[in-house]
């Protein structure tokens, strides 16, 4: 059997806020082409765990390995450099700029002082087409696009920047049924791109539809990590609430 190759390993992570332990000895890992769902109540420690990985918070103790090398994630920029990309609902895009401008923000293609807008548009379109993302207009500000499309642009940009790990924080929270389905398609597309995905969600259906493994947190502790085809929804719900099946 092939050696499981983890792109991310988080081992024995502890974090407390002014005496309150938010994370107690939490370990989790992620393989290429895999989606791991992280579920739990509000305050279970989901966002704390993910913020540590995305560089927004520093851990108290424990270790993080990226492709089996120990790393120190000092901030959001450092995390991005290491290929960890967090997809927020709205934070990442400039609503007043068009698709290509957002796609290349901070990384623009230019000749001397002048932007090469046509080239950037073509490249952005190429990447998004490959992901089967349809955008009806590349020339209007992205504010005029739907929430799902904006998310798709952020994901496309991350892929273009060679991200290895995606953190998706409640990606379907503000979306309708149709849009949620499209995000699901997108996640499946992403899986084929040799990346790993952490998916944080309140929606137990999403988690079962999209994830290969499900990690359940409760009161800052890792209750269990299960293969999603070996459990039922009821069992996961029971784990979230009671901590046992």
């Amino acid at each position, binding site marked *: 059997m092939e050696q499981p190759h983890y792109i991310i390993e988080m081992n024995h992570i502890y974090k407390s806020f002014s005496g309150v332990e938010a994370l107690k000895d939490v370990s989790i890992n992620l393989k290429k082409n895999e989606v791991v769902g992280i579920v739990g109540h509000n305050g279970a420690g989901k966002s704390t765990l993910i913020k540590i990985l995305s560089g927004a918070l520093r851990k108290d103790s424990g270790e993080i390995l990226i492709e089996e090398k120990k790393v120190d994630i000092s901030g959001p920029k450092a995390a991005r450099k290491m290929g960890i990309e967090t997809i927020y609902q709205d*934070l990442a*895009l400039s609503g*007043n*700029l068009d698709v290509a401008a957002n796609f290349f*923000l901070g990384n*623009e293609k230019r000749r001397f*002082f002048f932007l090469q807008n046509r080239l950037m548009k073509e490249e952005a379109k190429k990447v998004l087409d490959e992901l089967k993302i349809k955008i*009806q207009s590349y020339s*209007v500000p992205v504010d005029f696009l739907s929430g799902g499309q904006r998310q798709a642009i952020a994901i496309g940009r991350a892929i273009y920047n060679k991200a290895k790990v995606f953190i998706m924080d409640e990606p379907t929270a503000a979306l309708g049924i149709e849009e949620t389905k499209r995000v699901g398609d997108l996640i499946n597309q992403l899986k084929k791109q040799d990346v790993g995905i952490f998916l944080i969600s309140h929606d137990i259906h999403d988690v079962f539809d999209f994830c290969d493994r499900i990690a359940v947190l409760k009161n800052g502790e890792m209750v269990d990590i299960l293969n999603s085809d070996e459990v039922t929804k009821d069992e996961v719900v029971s784990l979230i609430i009671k901590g046992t099946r």
Partner: protein
Amino acid sequence: MFQDRKNLLYYLGLFSPLIFLVLLILVFSLLHPRFLHPLNIFNVMRQISITGLIALGMTFVIIVRGIDLSVGSLLALCGLVGAVIAKGGLVERFSVGVNTELTNPWYWALAGSILIGLVAGSVNGLCITKLKVPAFVVTLGGLSAYRGAALIVSDGGPISGFNEAYRWIGQGKIGMVPIPVIIFLVFIVLCHIILNYTLYGRYIYSVGGNPEAARLSGINTDLIITSTYVITGFFVGLSSFILSARLNSAEAVAGLGYELTVIAAVVVGGTSLFGGTGNILGTIIGAMLFGVLQNGLVLLNVSSYVQQIIIGTILILAVAFDRFGKSARSV
């Protein structure tokens, strides 16, 4: 379906100032036969040039969610410093004559005016980004402080009487086109190119649209914000020189209330006070709108008191329209 409606509103918002301007020109040309006379047209254009130049800089400021209330006061200060340099002090201040000799040539005066503008712009920008004082407060302070400095520099009175070369910048013409209009046109083109086709322009829009996203993308947002006030300072310095050349006099009361005219032109031209949107062409249309309105009302013998009421009302309506557009978009 409603995606299309949102797009329609977007384009309607984009073109409404232009539509309004065309309507205004139509109405005035029907009501007054001399309105469309080339002489009058160039007269309006020259009038617009001075506030229009400052409005170019203000467009940058407002796109990054800022505001600069100090431009009127700074204009007086810059103009006076230039005049003092030209005159070599305050001794010769009232030598009004046709061929007045100057101690220093006009270009030193111009350089001095622009330098003061740049310095004041940097001070504004640094107070906003480093001391974290809101732009409204910083430049409101500047509105008072720069006016005070102008009064000190001039010792309260005007400085008048420059030589022909100096005055030519404000009063001269090439063919039928006044020099201030030519200067204005050059900077319109330059600013339009900068804002639309350069990396710097892209960063301006990005910082205005979502400062957090801009910062996460590695853009130095403080530097970008500060630079917009420096640009505005440059234009204030330049137009202060043009104004004193045109009037053959620099005064501490110059530019009173210009902040309103300038901000009104920018906002009516479609630049949102919420930041992120706007463009140079819109600002030009906004400036022309007020210029044409003022000129037309004068031709029709409407009292200047009433004009002020009209300008204020249009400003408020323009912002209300912007807000309406915003809420329609976020449906």
